[in-house]
């Protein structure tokens, strides 16, 4: 009798496990199941700079140019282009066979409408449009850009790999007010968005675009052939608990974790069924940002004292912890990219606390408590403010470290008010490398004071003049020289403090192949074996 019971129990367990396996097998070899780094909420990658929206954009839209793994701009939708001798007329010809998901061909008119909308939202796009006189499309497969004066970053802008990316949409969609979200998600990219299966906070589904004609070149960064070898990609938007993500990957219920927590890195690396693919050579950079409007950070000497106090290693050690995932970087432009240099960074790289104390004393700092905002719910940066507070106290600052959730911080940092009316002095954040790799994209180099784009509102006319010069320069060597001068000036006035770089590991099942060096989280060329 006992044996019968044991046999029955074993049979039940086997049936149970088999049923479970059958359920899991629903994700067959043609379905790639990905856990993205965050939730996807906004489906308009021009309307917001959120990275999730950008990644969604890369799935369904195509771009005129891409940035390859060596950070070179390469044609993508564009077949060929010419530049007039005076650098004021740019003529582009589109690749044959480009088609939107609704079957209509991609035309120059679509490109022009898309660029115009992008130019109203993106910082680099806005800068480009200050040069643009007009655009036209003489034939359906060509478009031209007429400039008022020569501009040194036309291709860099059109091929910019990070938010906001100039994705090409149908004209009828791109004509949507730039401050209203689009509701038609027709693109011409390698995947088609399954709107009817999109459940915010649950899942987003993309199907292979059978009509997509990839380029012949191998994939590299956001450039090259966008070959798709799976029929369906599912983004699991509900799975956001870090431990649960690892469990699901180990069990094979998902194929890729876009951003596993640093503390799981070693365990993931040791798992024989998993891999940590190398997918990016451009890292993320931490930074501390001052509010230049509020005392004492309206005083450059006080900002320099902070620069001197903030050596990068303690921040990286505390926040990342895994030595192979971080490195110090003396450049304000992402290390490893063409404009990176140590110019002007001596104040930070050769810093010591004694120097910081001397600088602070010389600044006439009156002991005003520094309101430092600490996000408690953003694991990727939440330890940085504690290190900052400690180093600043050692330098002689009084620090008021205020804990809040990230969204409160995001709301508060937009306020230009004084401290007693809800203002702030400093916050710390992280940037993906391609958002800060040149003086136009890098928002901290917009030093127009209160008119400037990004929170902190630094004001420096000299830096703005140099930036305008950089925008006009077309010679790469001169551009590099100018970038060095710009960075030296930024260190001199203390726009912000770069705090070193780290790479965000990705984890995947071993049966996923085809990873290549990209500039973000993009999912073509992958095979599920």
């Amino acid at each position: 009798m006992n044996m019968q019971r044991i046999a029955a129990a074993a049979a039940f367990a086997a049936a149970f496990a088999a049923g479970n396996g059958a359920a899991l097998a629903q994700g067959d070899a043609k379905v790639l199941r990905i856990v993205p780094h965050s939730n996807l909420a906004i489906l308009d990658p021009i309307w917001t700079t959120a990275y999730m929206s950008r990644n969604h954009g890369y799935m369904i839209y195509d771009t005129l140019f891409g940035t390859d793994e060596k950070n070179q701009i390469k044609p993508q939708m564009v077949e060929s282009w010419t530049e007039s001798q005076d650098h004021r007329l740019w003529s582009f010809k589109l690749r044959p066979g480009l088609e939107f998901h609704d079957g209509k061909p991609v035309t120059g008119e679509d490109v022009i409408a898309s660029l115009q909308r992008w130019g109203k939202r993106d910082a680099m796009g806005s800068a480009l449009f200050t040069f643009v006189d007009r655009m036209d499309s003489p034939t359906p497969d060509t478009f031209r850009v007429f400039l008022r004066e020569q501009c040194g970053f036309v291709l860099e802008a059109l091929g910019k790999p990070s938010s906001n990316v100039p994705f090409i949409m149908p004209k009828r969609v791109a004509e949507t007010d730039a401050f209203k979200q689009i509701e038609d998600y027709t693109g011409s990219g390698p995947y088609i968005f399954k709107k009817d299966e999109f459940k915010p906070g649950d899942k987003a589904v993309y199907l292979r675009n059978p009509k997509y004609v990839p380029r012949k070149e191998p994939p590299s960064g956001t450039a090259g052939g966008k070959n798709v070898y799976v029929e369906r990609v599912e983004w699991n938007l509900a799975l956001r608990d870090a431990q649960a993500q690892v469990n699901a990957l180990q069990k094979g219920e998902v194929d890729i974790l876009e951003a596993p927590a640093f503390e799981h890195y070693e365990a993931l690396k040791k798992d024989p069924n998993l891999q940590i693919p190398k997918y990016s050579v451009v890292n993320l950079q931490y930074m501390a940002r001052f509010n230049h409007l509020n005392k004492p950070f309206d005083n450059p000497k006080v900002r320099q004292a902070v620069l001197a106090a903030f050596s990068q290693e303690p921040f990286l050690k505390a926040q990342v912890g895994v030595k192979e995932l971080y490195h110090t970087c003396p450049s304000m432009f992402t290390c490893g990219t063409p404009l990176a240099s140590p110019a002007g960074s001596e104040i930070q790289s050769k810093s010591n606390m004694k120097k910081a104390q001397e600088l602070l004393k010389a600044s006439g700092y009156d002991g005003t408590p520094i309101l430092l905002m600490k996000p408690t719910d953003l694991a990727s940066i939440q330890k940085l403010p504690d290190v900052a507070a400690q180093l600043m106290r050692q330098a002689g600052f009084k620090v008021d470290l205020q804990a809040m959730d990230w969204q409160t911080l995001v709301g508060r940092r937009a306020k230009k008010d004084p401290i007693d009316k809800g203002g702030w002095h400093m916050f710390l954040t992280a940037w993906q490398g391609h958002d800060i790799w040149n003086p136009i994209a890098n928002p901290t180099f917009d030093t127009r004071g209160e008119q400037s784009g990004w929170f902190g509102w630094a004001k420096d006319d000299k830096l703005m003049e140099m930036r305008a010069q950089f925008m006009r320069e077309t010679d790469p060597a001169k551009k590099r020289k100018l970038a060095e001068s710009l960075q030296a000036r930024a260190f001199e006035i203390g726009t912000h403090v770069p705090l070193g770089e780290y790479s965000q590991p990705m984890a995947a099942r071993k049966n996923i192949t085809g990873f290549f060096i990209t500039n973000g989280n993009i999912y073509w060329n992958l095979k599920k074996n």
Partner: protein
Amino acid sequence: MYTFLARRLLSTIPVLLIVAVLVFLLLRLTPGDPAAILAGDAANTEQIARIRENLGLDRPIPVQFGIWFGNLLSGDLGESFYYKQKVTALIGQRLEPTISLAALTTLFAVLVSVPLGVLAAWRFDSWFDRALMGFSVMGFSVPVFVLAYLLIWFVSLKLGLLPVQGYHRIADGFWPYLQHLILPSFTLSIIYVALIARVTRASVLEALGEDYIRTARAKGLPELRVLVRHALANAAVPIVTVIGIGVALLIGGVVVTESVYAIPGLGRLTVDAVLARDFPTIQGVILLFSFAYVLVNLLVDVSYVFLDPRIRY
């Protein structure tokens, strides 16, 4: 009875009205700017101001309230700032997972805890009684997420019996639906098993000391009949009350379980909405939770009539 029902249903209106006003005002007074969150990290102050204007957040609070309340009266909870979808549609998507989780948890908790509580009362001060009380303390003390991780590690990763995470809609097949709910429901039910078992034990223990139990035993009724028909039936009112409160709490209180098991339910929607300062969604789900509380309480009150013939409304 019908007058009572009508009165109670009418009394929900001022309750919901007060909740609506309070939630609306509290949200506007808490720090955080939905426009800044929506715009993304690299957006500038001008862009944020434009988004705020488009969302209508630049208008005076009474005007915002008037618009929202006017829509509410016509059954429209508004559009989510964050997801650009109707709040009613968002809630509709999330109802099935949460109700399924709450129902299975309640079913499991009641089926396990009531017999255990009755047995413990019947065997008062025995090893079984003491073990059950010990388990109750443990059930209250162990955090849900710890239990969840332990169960996932053992049942899913070591034994491979159940999925680690996710939710399958019932329309996609009953077996996958059930498979994905077993572990979350079991995890969540432990605290309710502990709570209901304790209350059942105390109520039945009290009933077992009554004269009518002695009379029933003296009449020679079987012990099972004495326990179920006489002791448990008379002890049912507090037990049903606790179960009712449990159900109401479950509808809005499954956030941790939903997060660990990646179940896209109302709890997760609430947390996301709060983090994104998605005012229309927060207002919608809190109104729903309030209505659920009121409704469950009403059902519990109505059940008293059937459980205790002495109660009349």
